[in-house]
């Protein structure tokens, strides 16, 4: 995968999280912890579903697993990149 495409996934993911959390996209980085910006486990599940639709992938995690495994924004971006790569 090209670096541009990877950056694009990160940017679109951050935009999505920003729109859900009410935080400015410019203030969210890969290292931003979800709990720190007030995302609850149910909101995370919703974000995961939106990202699935956006990238046409299936993130096979239940709500608790997602909350345990996706601690920060980078974790989400990595998970999506892996699934997008696997598809292409």
């Amino acid at each position: 995968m090209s670096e541009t495409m990877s950056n694009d996934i990160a940017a679109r993911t951050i935009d999505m999280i920003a729109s859900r959390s009410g935080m400015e996209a410019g203030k969210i980085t890969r290292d931003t912890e979800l709990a720190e910006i007030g995302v609850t486990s149910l909101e995370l599940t919703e974000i995961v579903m939106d990202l699935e639709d956006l990238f046409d992938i299936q993130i096979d995690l239940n709500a608790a697993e997602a909350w345990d495994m996706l601690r920060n924004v980078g974790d989400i971006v990595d998970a999506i990149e892996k699934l997008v790569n696997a598809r292409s």
Partner: protein
Amino acid sequence: MSRQRVVITGLGGLCAIGTDADSIWQSMCAGRCGLGPLTIDRRDLRTNIGGEIGAIAEDGIDPRRRVTMGRFSVLAVLAAGEALAASGLDLRTADPKRIGAVIGVAIWGADAVDESYRDIFLEGKKRTNIFAVPRAMPSAPAGQVSMQYGLRGPVFGVTSACSSSNHAILAAIDQLRLGRADIMLAGGTDTPMQYGILKVWETLRVLARQSCRPFSADRDGLVLADGAGVAVLETWEHATARNAPILAEIVGCGMSADAGDIVSPSVEGPVAAMQACLNDAELPATAIDYINAHGTATKANDRIETQAIRAVFGDHADKLAVSSTKSMHGHCLGASGAIELIACVNAIRHGIVPPTIGYTTPDPECDLEITANVAQERPVNVAISNAFAFGGLNAVIAVRKV
């Protein structure tokens, strides 16, 4: 002020591990799992596990009445009929105004609602089935039970998601304690084995992929199931005066609300409900021998429930048996507490703790004495049944040997 003692004189139930209370108990003793691949039209569901009851050959209900009933009403009427028969009550001579019913429902008549959507949106019909409303309304099972058996006392439905049965039993006990009735039928019913219900639960991402493993480290969610359960509750005076078979006494009950999150449970709410139940029963924590846990097998519930049990029972938490029979019959939502009452009453009567099946790996966050995989012989004098629902609505019932 002395209050009425409340006893259980009959039990009835249907779920994935049996279509009568005795069969359900035998399955529990055998550790039999009733959960399996779905036989309904799954359409685009990814979920393929649930607890179905299957066809009921002869329900004895007048066909003209049955067309007005959703399946959850049919199940409730059958469970109530079994419980009444077991209680030996002669309805021809009893005063119907002194007999009531409270039936808990978490959802609604899910088959009727699904059918209406299919009729209108898929098949382009101009109208739904004429009985869509009476088939679907959550109070219908209570009404149908009263009609089938001619009960003219306090009759109503209650709803508190997964605690509905326990709240129904609690509300029925109140009618008896307040002197509004001598006999109350109480329990719950639900039929989530419908596409629409499975679809919304799937979206919540709390459903197990393959099996229900409460308290096991590898648990990954709950399994929904159809079910209904009804108990005949009666004042001690009334039951003894007619020489009724007394199966057990309900010695206490407690309620609380988390007032926190609509889906995430708190520790404090369940603690308060269990404590209130012990206070109502006037029993110390050390008197409890068995806890039939809410034990849904979601990561959060089982961890939080463990913490709550530890907070209430202290060191005694290591001495009492804990199991979740949902591992066998699944999560019957509004019927859960009633099905689990069958487990508690029989545990007391037979000195057998039903198991939590599918248990493979201890979880340090659920470090209770889980009765794993195989039923255990063990004297049980008092058992409590926990129900902790979405919305933070908690209800706990204590049952004692008579």
